[in-house]
């Protein structure tokens, strides 16, 4: 679903702001991903990308839990397109200028509603004047440095967006029903600046994903752990760095088993930490729970590990993004005994996005 089509169907779906209490309607707002703040919007703004038809779209989970498809970009790509302003029948749009901004934003859990722009590029599209008829502005951000990926986490959301500003900024809508604690996004923001009437703003989210090269050093993880006279195991994962469609291979070797083990699981855990110093906030989430073994092994038994990462919603590891947050992944090997006691060992792994993936 592209914004072009939503833009065209705009008039029939236009809702006055005082209806914002109506959640159903609010949903619709969010679904179409465009924000309208004006009581009487004078125009419809749509943003299209030059290669919008061919560009890959990836699903992104919105605040309300719905999936939308957003175009995908990579760092160093040129982001170009058109901004189309269509005044409604018989209306003219007076403005003090039209600009498009490319923003990289972070929104934090503890600082909700406040987007911190870590990237901001501006293109002035028009000098102050009036728009009577449909008008298209091409824009281009050549070779944009977008070092961070879009990230929707428990704590962080990072987004890039292109934003139009048109009259009243109504970003407060984001505060409704937002369950995401951290947003890291890229967005294009188009702003039609007006004086007293307030600016008209339009946003277009897009997704940034960055590929990493194959890590030059990728050692296996091998470790012997245990509880004295109780349980000794040695486990091995074939690598310490996995790409997102990788498969974790390894084995768990039982050196000593004196407890009655019921089963053994391998968990993938994600740890988001935001803030710094005293403000550091850490959230850990178990993304995968994969049973490796059923029943009690005996000494000398070696249990194979083979975990495909594909089915899980993973992102690359992020280290200290803009001094704001980090995302780390851990493999947690958990042994559960018959009294449901858990014995575990957690090992950090690095996740990265490999180039030759399909997404």
């Amino acid at each position: 679903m592209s914004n072009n089509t939503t833009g065209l169907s705009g008039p029939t779906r236009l809702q006055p702001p005082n209806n914002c209490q109506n959640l159903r309607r609010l949903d619709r707002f969010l679904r179409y991903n465009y924000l309208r703040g004006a009581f009487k919007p004078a125009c419809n703004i749509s943003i299209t990308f030059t290669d919008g038809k061919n560009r890959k779209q990836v699903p992104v989970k919105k605040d309300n839990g719905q999936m939308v498809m957003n175009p995908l970009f990579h760092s160093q790509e040129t982001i170009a397109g058109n901004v189309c302003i269509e005044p409604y029948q018989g209306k003219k749009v007076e403005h003090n200028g039209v600009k498009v901004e490319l923003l990289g934003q972070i929104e934090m859990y503890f600082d909700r509603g406040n987007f911190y722009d870590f990237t901001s590029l501006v293109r002035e599209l028009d000098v102050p004047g009036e728009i009577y008829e449909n008008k298209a502005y091409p824009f281009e951000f050549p070779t944009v440095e977008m070092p961070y990926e879009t990230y929707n986490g428990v704590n962080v959301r990072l987004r890039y967006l292109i934003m139009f500003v048109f009259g009243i900024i109504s970003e407060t809508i984001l505060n409704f029903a937002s369950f995401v604690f951290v947003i890291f996004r890229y967005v294009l923001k188009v702003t039609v600046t007006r004086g007293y009437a307030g600016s008209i703003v339009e946003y277009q989210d897009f997704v940034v994903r960055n590929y990493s090269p194959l890590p030059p050093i990728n050692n296996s993880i091998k470790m012997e752990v245990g509880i004295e006279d109780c349980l000794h195991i040695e486990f091995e994962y074939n690598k310490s760095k996995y790409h997102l469609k990788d498969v974790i291979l390894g084995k768990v070797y039982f050196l000593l088993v004196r407890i009655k083990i019921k089963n053994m699981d391998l968990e993938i855990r994600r740890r988001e930490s935001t803030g710094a110093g005293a403000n550091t906030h850490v959230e850990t989430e178990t993304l995968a729970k994969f049973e490796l073994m059923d029943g009690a092994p005996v000494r000398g038994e070696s249990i194979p590990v083979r975990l495909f990462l594909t089915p899980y919603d993973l992102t690359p590891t992020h280290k200290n993004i803009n001094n704001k947050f980090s995302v780390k992944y851990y493999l947690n090997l958990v042994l559960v005994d018959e009294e449901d006691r858990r014995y575990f060992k957690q090992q950090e792994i690095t996740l990265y996005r490999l180039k030759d993936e399909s997404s």
Partner: protein
Amino acid sequence: MRRLAGVEDEEKWLAEGIAGIQHTAFFMHRALDANNLREVLKYSALMLSELRTSKLSPQKYYDLYMRAFDELRQLEVFFKDESRHGLPVVDLYELVQHAGNILPRMYLLCTVGSVYIKSKQAPSKDVLKDLVEMCRGVQHPIRGLFLRSYLAQVSRDKLPEIGSEYEGDANTVMDAVEFVLQNFTEMNKLWVRIQHQGPGTVREKQEKERNELRDLVGKNLHVLGQIEGVDLEMYKETVLPRVLEQVVNCKDELAQYYLMECIIQVFPDEYHLQTLETLLAACTQLMVGGLSDLSVLPLTILPTVDTKIVLTQLMDRLSNYAASSPDVLHEFLQVEAFAKLSNAIGKVIDTQIEMPIVGAMTLFVSLLTFTLRVHPDRLDYVDQILGACVVKLSSVPKLEDARAMKQVVALLSAPLEKYNDIVTALTLSNYPRVMDHLDDGTNKVMAMLIIQSIMKNNSCISTADKVEVLFELIKGLIKDLDGTDTEELDEEDFQEEQNSVARLIHMLDNEEPEEMLKIICVVRKHLMTGGTRRLPFTVPPLVFSALRLVRQLDSQGGDITGEEVSATPRKIFQILNQTIEVLSSVPCPELALRLYLQCAEAASDCDLEPAAYEFFTQAFILYEEEIADSKAQVTAIHLIIGTLQRINVFGVENRDTLTHKATGYSARLLKKPDQCRAVYACSHLFWVDDIDGIKDGERALLCLRRALRIANAAQQMSNATRGSSGPVTLFVEILNKYIYFYEKGNPHITPSDIQSLIELINTEMQSDDNGNRRTHSDPFFTSTLRYIRFQKQKGGLIGDKYDLIKL
């Protein structure tokens, strides 16, 4: 948790499980119909999750498993058809591995794996290897066993064995073997592990449950046995060592016993033969582990691995194999099967002190059976086995176990049956030593068996040495053994035994008189120890055997009689005399008398007058001194008369003495009719119808007259005592004698004598008008008269003679 549950609970849980499977299977079918892969995977995984239960006993779990198994078949059909789910099978193979729970994941993986192999998009060996490796994740014994048995089942027709479509450059039969071996190893480990689960109190139940599961494990060996292309080399180098390693190392009695049994049953005989050493080495290593377990659970008495059964089975199989075709025998020789088996058994017996004697014996029997089948020509092997047996038997106190005894009997009978010839058995030096260890009863049974074997096969024992051995073997029958309570013996059995011995004596024969004499001496020596109860049975055959020798010597004539030859009739008669003498003291005078008479006759045939005379003397002495019973006397005197009549060796003087004695005794019999008959019988002593026979007609007539007198007296006595007529029969009998002698030409018998006798009889019959008597004597008399008339009519020389008799 399960252990505490009752049967009802289990039923309930099973029902729940089945219901769960049915429920999810319904949704799975719907998804299958809709070709919705995602839903299919979701519901099939859900369905398979029912198998994750720990609450069921193996039996019940099997029920549940079978339900799921049926559903998996449909799933497989779906996976096979790419057009239905739209994924290449390789992707499918990955996709099913996304399942979070291992058990459903593995069942699905196995199912897809089998489709994967079938599609030939990957080398079957790789897929198989992957599957068998990944199954390691299920360590729960029962769940793991069933999972792996599922794997074995779906992969059975996809192994890259020779001739299979899955065999190719990269996939060799070795891969198939490797796969099955690994699966087997893992299954066995799981199976063995069941015993370590749960408390010891339910151990018995657990063992029972384990037993129910054993076929799941054994199935793998079965498959191994069936894989096409496992040649001897591979079997020897790979299959057997790996399997045995597992068997030995699992240190579990149940498993070891069952698996050894499997190995022996599923692989071909010739493989066993060629790998005998390995196999036997493993056998001797069993058990060792079993003992250590005992210490863990001292309260439970564990059955130790029955090595003997395992070995026995092995040997039985090899024996049958050897018996199946003579062509394979050289293979046995090649691998020195006997030596290896023998060694192994020795080792087993030595190391397993606690093995009951019956076990050791069973082993020996099997080994012996094997030897007899494979090396029928190697008596030394047989002897060796018996020797080992003796050693074992000597190490224990007197054998009392009835079963062990039975085994020993079997051990001893085997050579008899095989060789059908006791002679062979007699050359086995250890044979008697084994017999020594039997108790008396069994010893007798065994002796009987030996005799029966001889009888059945009509084998002739022809040297004194062998006879010596043989009698040593059957001494239980020959004499009372120490401590035997003779009272307990059943009379019928005893007779049966002794009759057998008697029959046996007849089987001892040698053409060579010298040797035969030796045999007789040996037999005599043994028999003489038999005691009073046995002698009456055993002496007669011995005597007759000796007499046969005598006659043989006699028929050969005197030309063989040299100075140094001991086998002379004279010598034999001396022996006989001594032998029978013993018998007379038993006391068994009638029998002794008969034997004396037999000997006398034989001596007479040999022209040994003194010997014959001596025998007669002995007979008469017996008659006089020992035979008191009047009936016995009658019989004896008739025997004496009969024998004497036939003997023609005596000179006049001796003969007179003897005949005189005989006549004298005849006349002194108690009852008149007996006297009468004996006396007229004596008449034959004087008239032998022979060319050179004695023809003393006068004395014959005298005898007849005397008989008539006695008959008369008898009749008078009868009249006096009972008032009825006497025995006309006697007269008729005497008449017949008259007629006989007349016919034979005794000049002293005249027609008038006969006529007067006939008249006399007629008168007697008339004088007594008693109907009974008349009818009784009538037929005999009438037929006598008819005979006379007939002879008259016949004419000729005899007819002329008879014509003189007027009727």
